[in-house]
């Protein structure tokens, strides 16, 4: 789960990371008031869950409160990568002598959180990694021992020569690691971490993502969720306990299991179609899930056909069949549906479906081809 920059900064500030003062606002008037309170130059920053805010014009410097207000009125409501800006962060501007990057990502290869630091901050770290890998130091942290002082020291000396700065940045890395562990993060990043002309070290931007698997034990993070910053159908799906990701195609997919769901989307593409979504109903055979899945998929006007691909293991295919029947009785479908079912209780499921006027196949390849043809305006077989 992603959180906004201002939320990430609140978390890091609580651990002791030095961050210029700032407040979040939802109106231009609030922005003006905050700018006045802060005094001096401020930066107005769009709070959306996407990168490239600067390039899109979502981050602007303001010399006066009046200018901040004017800028805010333009940024608020702006669309960035398809997301509407509902909130801006107003924060004190800082003078910058040098910019560094400090981040922690959860790395599968070393089975550990890995520190990544670079004296080349302020730009996309993946670009640095590609073009000048020697400017990045990576260090896996064994969580049984935690980030040790000597490791923070080694990372610090990669960034700075001056031992005073090394000690200051070591403290910041300790704080970043502490926040990472405390909140079960999967990513925690300060970019840029700047040195001011006066030698002060400050975090000017922060990114923080929390492991979805760990949210059950982090109510403090869950309450930071901003549903206005997400795709509405994905919010709907999450509340229905479905794993759903909206895509741009027109073949709506309902599958059990993440791997099979991806393979189904790939097969749609293989036969020249475009999947409208990723959707995994999971291992349980609760008919309610099927009902919700159909509601969410049919809510997307671009969907031209619905494709079910169910391999019954734990999932009972008769439960899925019942779900389809129930849902379509309540809300008759306006688009064609292609059903593939096999595995546990397959015969019962087939009977339920044919009794209710549906046809179904037990072959994945055949079902996908049919769905693609229907999406292209062909006929159901």
């Amino acid at each position, binding site marked *: 789960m992603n959180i906004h920059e201002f939320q990430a900064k609140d978390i890091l500030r609580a651990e002791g990371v030095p961050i210029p003062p700032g407040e979040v606002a939802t109106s231009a008037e609030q922005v003006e008031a905050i700018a006045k309170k802060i005094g001096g130059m401020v930066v107005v920053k769009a709070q959306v869950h996407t990168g490239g805010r600067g390039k899109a014009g979502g981050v602007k410097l303001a010399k006066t409160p009046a200018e901040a207000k004017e800028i805010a009125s333009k940024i608020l409501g702006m669309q960035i990568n398809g997301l509407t800006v509902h909130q801006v962060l107003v924060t004190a501007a800082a003078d910058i002598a040098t910019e560094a990057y400090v981040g922690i*990502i*959860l790395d*599968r*290869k070393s*089975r*550990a*959180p890995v520190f990544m630091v670079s004296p080349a901050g302020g730009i996309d770290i*993946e670009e640095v990694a*590609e073009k000048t890998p020697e400017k990045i130091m990576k260090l896996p942290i*064994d*969580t*049984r021992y935690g980030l040790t002082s000597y490791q923070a020291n080694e990372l610090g000396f990669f960034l700075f020569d001056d031992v005073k700065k090394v000690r200051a940045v070591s403290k910041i890395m300790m704080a970043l690691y502490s926040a990472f*562990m405390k909140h*079960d993060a*999967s990513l925690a990043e300060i970019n840029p971490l700047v040195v001011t002309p006066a030698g002060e070290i400050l975090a000017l931007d922060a990114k923080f993502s929390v*492991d*979805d*698997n*760990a949210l*059950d*034990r982090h109510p403090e993070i869950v309450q930071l969720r901003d549903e206005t910053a997400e795709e509405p159908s994905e919010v709907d799906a999450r509340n229905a306990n479905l*794993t759903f*990701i909206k*895509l741009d195609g027109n073949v709506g997919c309902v*599958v*059990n*299991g*993440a*791997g*099979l*769901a*991806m*393979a189904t*989307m*790939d*097969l*749609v*593409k*293989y036969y020249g179609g475009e*999947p409208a979504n*990723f959707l*995994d109903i999971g*291992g349980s055979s609760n008919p309610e899930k099927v009902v919700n899945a159909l509601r969410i998929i049919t809510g997307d006007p671009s969907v031209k056909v619905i494709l079910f691909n169910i*391999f*019954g*293991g*734990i*999932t009972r295919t008769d439960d899925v069949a019942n779900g389809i029947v129930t849902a379509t009785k309540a809300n008759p479908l306006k688009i064609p549906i292609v059903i593939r079912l*096999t*595995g*546990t209780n397959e015969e019962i499921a087939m009977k339920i479906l044919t009794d209710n006027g549906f046809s179904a196949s037990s072959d*994945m*390849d055949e079902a996908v081809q049919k769905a693609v043809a229907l999406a292209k305006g062909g006929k159901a077989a």
Partner: protein
Amino acid sequence: MSIFIDSSTTVIVQGITGRDGGFHSKQMLEYGTKIVGGVTPGKGGQKFEDKVPVFNTVHDAVAATGANTSVIYVPPMFAADAMMEAADAGIKFIVCITEGVPVLDMTKVYPFVKEKGARLLGPNCPGLITPGESKVGIIPGRICTPGSIGVVSRSGTLTYEVVYQLTRAGMGQSTCVGIGGDPINGTNFIDCLAAFEKDPKTKAVAMMGEIGGTDEQEAAEFVQKHMKKPVVGFIAGQTAPPGRRMGHAGAIISGSAGTAAEKIEAFERAGMGVAKRPMDFVELLRARM
């Protein structure tokens, strides 16, 4: 022969009296798996299905039964503890079915299990099955048949799909292993490939990977350097957008890393067969055996 489990494997079930644990324990018993005990704190002394003794702790269960394998069906927030308990009690093969285990928990569980000299499969995996001998986990027994294809996969139902097609085509399996879809897990592709290479019964291997990470690339390198047996691979998630988690915690493309394209390229470079569709395995394997 087979890998990791066979007819002599003795199993305890952690969470045997829970909904999922109970359901799958029955299925395993029906399949013929030697379940010698179960563990649920506070239910020590009871019997599951009137025959399997239940214990309060894994230590008690191991002391009483001598089990060498454990399968875990406990809620995600308790799974890390369950894996460590099993390893501490002397269990040598631990299979964790539980989905949704916090990833940072695994950064402690993995070295713990390793220190105790145990092998972990999972978490968030369907377990494994040696057809006709033993199944530990949730892979449906019906769809499998004994034979000489080793199957290893990061996914659940996709594995079933492939195994189902192999079985229909008359190609039985030595062992089918689901290593799970989490970013940090106990047993990876290479562990399974190495075991299949050594297993005299296995003649060829079907391997199902997905987007995210570089496990498949490393597996391809291993195949090229260390394997004489043919391997056919598939990658799910060619249509997945970067930065989005496709269900599995591990199925996420970060930046330019972990795409299906680079994994397929690695398979090709290693001289492996590449299945474009799940249904291509039968033919590709047959052509190589």
